[in-house]
């Protein structure tokens, strides 16, 4: 279907896409513009599409009310660690399931897939007990370890497995003849070639970790340890009411970098998924 469209079709497609875009873009637009509106304008009805009065002080207040820079760093480094860890362990497991023949491989893979089926709410209490036993409450460890081994990592393993299945077998055999052992083959041949799939996995994992909500709230208690989605809930006035404009400014700052990363990486992302032959 990737053929040049006739001019009439082009207009049609652009038109359709632009209309469809409204429900996708309006809330974000509202978020961004409201973050620079005085609070009384935010709920004005009908809403101003373009703000009439600007109040940029909200962005300053974000940093005054919370250790926001610290929280930003927390989110960033946790997401980075989770992404790196997932990429490593999932590609290892994905590689083995795709490429190495060992007894019970299929059974083990099925067991692994259970991880994909469990909502976070279901296991949060036992996990809390486990981490309490390890004395890791109010540390970042749960937020790093659970995603690396939980549902998103299983999805990543699945993607990596699909990718490695499609990778030409001869490359590895050439490497074996060239004198490499399994791990070296994985590390120097398979992994560098898995870049596109790794890219897709990285974006998925990063997004998941970046947006994690339930776990931080349950596991973290001091503001200096908070992550961004959790920090967003903390912008309140003296009576617990939400400081909407400040909260939205923080939300904007939370979303923008990820959006920018997506803009830059989206081709890699789409192609990575295309290459990984993501099939059931």
């Amino acid at each position, binding site marked *: 279907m990737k053929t040049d469209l006739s001019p009439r079709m082009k207009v049609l497609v652009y038109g359709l896409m632009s209309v469809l875009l409204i429900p996708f873009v309006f809330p974000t637009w509202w978020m961004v513009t409201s973050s620079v509106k005085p609070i009384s304008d935010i709920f004005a009805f009908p809403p101003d599409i373009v703000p009439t009065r600007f109040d940029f002080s909200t962005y300053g207040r974000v940093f005054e009310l919370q250790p926001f820079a610290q929280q930003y760093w927390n989110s960033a480094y946790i997401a980075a660690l989770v992404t790196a860890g997932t990429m490593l362990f999932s590609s290892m497991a994905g590689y*083995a399931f795709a490429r190495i023949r060992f007894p019970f491989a299929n059974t083990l893979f099925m067991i692994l897939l259970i991880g994909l089926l469990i909502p976070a709410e279901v296991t949060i209490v036992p996990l809390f007990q486990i981490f309490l036993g390890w004395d890791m409450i109010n540390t970042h460890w749960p937020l790093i370890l659970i995603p690396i081994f939980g549902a998103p990592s299983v999805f990543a393993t699945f993607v990596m497995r699909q990718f490695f299945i499609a990778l030409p077998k001869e490359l590895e055999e050439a490497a074996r003849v060239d004198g490499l052992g399994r791990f070296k083959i994985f590390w120097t041949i398979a992994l560098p070639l898995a870049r596109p799939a790794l890219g897709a996995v990285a974006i998925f994992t990063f997004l998941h970790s970046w947006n994690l909500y339930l776990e931080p709230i349950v596991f973290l208690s001091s503001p200096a340890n908070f992550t961004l989605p959790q920090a967003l809930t903390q912008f309140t006035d003296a009576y617990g009411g939400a400081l909407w404009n400040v909260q939205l400014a923080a939300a904007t700052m939370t979303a923008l970098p990820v959006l920018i990363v997506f803009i830059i990486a989206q081709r890699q992302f789409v192609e990575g998924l295309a290459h990984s032959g993501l099939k059931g």
Partner: protein
Amino acid sequence: MTVAAKSSSPPARKRPFWTMERRDSLAGYLFIAPQMIGITVFVLIPLGLVFWYSLHEWNVLAQTFRFQGLGNYQTLLSDPGLPQVLGATAIFSVGLVIFNMGLALLLAVLLDQKLKGITLYRTLFFSPVVVSLVAWTIVWGFLLQNNGGINALLATFGIEGPNWLRHPTTAMISVIVVQVFKNVGLNMVLFLAALQGVPRELYEAARVDGTPAFKQFTRITLPMISPTVLLTSIITIVGSLQVFAQIAVLTQGGPGMSTTVLVYYLYQQAFQFHKFGYGATLSILLFVVVAVLTFIQWQMRRKLVFYEN
């Protein structure tokens, strides 16, 4: 040089224990070890514990933790709220999957065109995925009010919109739609990738054969990307059974019980009503539902999905 095989077999040699196969198997286990250990500790053991809790009467506040065998499961069977909850869950999941997949597919097809600025469109359609859930839901709650933006828009066309979040049907639709708009970008990207994997000669052959565009879509595109459709539908169904925050903010399960889906009900029982044992039982039910649905889909794949190898 003769063709016939030599009759004398070579002298029997003792094979070393670490044969090539065994060494390779060991490597395989070492490779999956981190993930398998992780899954055991962070998924399987917790799941086992949840099952263990479900055999108890556990009131968190009252500190009661009493073994009662299958008592919670009996409660489950006679729970008057449960049929409604399961019904709502089914409607929600089915509606969400259909709408999500349909929209994702439509967007993917549109975004697969060779057009200027298509990257910008892709990014914009994807953007809700990265927007904070809180902000997203607030805006939609605001738009969906009786006197909100959507009805104001409808009014300009002379349509009197329903009170979206206050009627069982429209509340369900609203919750689904808000959820779909937030996350459809992910499926869209998956479909886009799948579409790009369809060999373009197939379309050229179809054009030469005179296949109309719509038929090209239904008869070539859809079957060719059916494995991805299956996979995304599994992921989406599993995901739909886990949707919680949107419902909590938009409808709190109402009106009536119309949007109280299983995971929300579970949350209420465990965390609001402090009935942890029963909550654990509902967790097990949820897990079983997810597993069974996934299993059914997986079984249907042979019929509905086309595989190249």
